[in-house]
């Protein structure tokens, strides 16, 4: 979906988002407060430049507007697959973006991620997944790899994967699967502006995704294993 339409729905009180080479930035009004907007569009691959632009926007917000909430709009086909990006250390650029988001959180900024179109593997990991909470629209695409490609690599027939995916959300694409696993806090529909306002109100800096995944039954082991390691006890039965 186009970011302009999204922005109209999301920010009925107005916004000043601009697009430059698939990089989105600006501010918007939410419940009378100014929030900072950072994101990408056009299914753009995340290369070193656009990772750095997003980081720059976040750092600027931290420096110039203490406490201002940040909304990250996600639409990407994943990390850029180029020799140049690897040579220049794309993992460092991605990590830098992730660290900037983390700093913002520790400095008291609320951070919401929203997958409004595509979120594929590496492009997603240091943006939406680094927010306090990440949300998705119902038609969003979220995945690491499609089932046909996975079937080729794992040598498990695609039909079998489709069958298994019905009961186990662990490998198949789709926002519902990520929702069940706690990676996506909620899938938004209806009044997006209201959803966003609620999300901002609820945001805090604690990573509860494993607990939510357990609660929703989509990721039954993660939280229990974390607890067992932390407490030095056995993994508790379900």
């Amino acid at each position, binding site marked *: 979906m186009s970011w302009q339409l999204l922005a109209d729905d999301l920010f009925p009180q107005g916004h000043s988002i601009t697009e430059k080479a698939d990089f989105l930035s600006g501010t918007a009004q939410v419940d009378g407060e100014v929030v900072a907007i950072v994101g990408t569009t056009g299914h753009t691959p995340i290369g070193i430049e656009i990772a750095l632009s997003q980081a720059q926007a976040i750092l600027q917000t931290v420096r110039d507007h203490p406490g201002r909430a940040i909304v990250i709009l996600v639409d990407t086909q994943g990390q850029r697959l180029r020799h140049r990006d690897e040579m*220049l*250390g794309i993992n460092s650029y991605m*990590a830098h973006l992730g660290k900037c988001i983390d700093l913002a959180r520790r400095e008291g900024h609320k951070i919401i991620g929203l997958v409004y179109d595509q979120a594929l593997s*590496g492009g997603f990991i240091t943006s939406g997944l*680094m927010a306090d909470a990440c949300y998705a629209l119902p038609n969003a695409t979220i995945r690491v790899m499609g089932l046909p490609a996975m079937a080729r690599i794992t040598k498990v027939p695609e039909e079998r994967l489709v069958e298994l995916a019905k009961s186990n959300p662990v490998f198949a694409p789709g926002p519902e699967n990520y929702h069940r696993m706690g990676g996506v806090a909620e899938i938004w529909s209806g009044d997006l502006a209201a959803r966003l306002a609620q999300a901002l109100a609820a945001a805090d800096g604690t990573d509860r*995704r494993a607990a939510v995944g357990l609660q929703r039954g989509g990721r039954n082991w993660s939280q229990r294993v974390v607890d067992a390691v932390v407490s030095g006890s056995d993994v508790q039965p379900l």
Partner: protein
Amino acid sequence: MTSSYLEANARERIAQMLDAGSFEEFLPPSKRIVSPHLGQLDAPVSFDDGVVVGRGALNGAKVFAAAQEGGFMGGAVGEVHGAKLVGLLKRAVQEQAEGVILLLETGGVRLHEANAGLIAVSEVMRAVLDTRAAGIPVIVLVGGSNGCFGGMGIVARCANAIIMSEEGRLAMSGPEVIETANGVEEFDSRDRALVWRTTGGKHRYLLGDCHGIVADDTAAFREAVTQTLQGFKNNPTALSLQALEAEQAMLEQRIARFGDVADPLEIWQRLGIDKPQDIAMLEAAAFMSLAEPHRVKGQA
């Protein structure tokens, strides 16, 4: 037992990295906490799900350590594997460890449980930064034959310091993936010399993404970790606006200086190294001293 870090497996590495007999494993293999997903896809499991985590001593100092087993599914991160890393980091905070050492060898997210792996990697990332925020330095070691790729390549750069051997590789997408996506002209994955000068330890050190190069030797890694941890005594470990602005500037400058370069050799030349083609054959110590005046120094 071998002294080569590359040849040792995860258990051997961690045993040799810490004071003899000091390592106490959390959720050891006898607990049989295996991946609940691999069996479904008729894939073999491992009793530690490919990662060894626990507590031990380094020259008497209380440290927490994890070692990924590159031999099991390429060291890839699944639900249990990722949760063991997160748990370790949380417990290190709770017990006020003097440092966390992560011996990473991984292709990134485990495809068989890709969604769990992806979320887990981001949880690990946040847990690493929580650990740093608690004043505990996190040191990453990369020296296994599978390198450190994918999301874990990002995690590595969230740590306070990275120590590599020249055989170690640190990157995001593997050369095969790039070749498949964009052709052999883009990245010839069979040209291993190119692969290593693009992703290998020496290049990462020269660019400022890694903080020390050691020989492929567990004792050399141990020594480097010891020194690095010393360096963080009474020094801040948490992220700061100032440090991240400096990193922003460094990364911007990197693109400005080298963005038009096609081959890492040219980057090394621009850094002022006379005979960049000789870099590949230099032993670790000789390389470190040759690189010192030229390399970019990064920290965040």
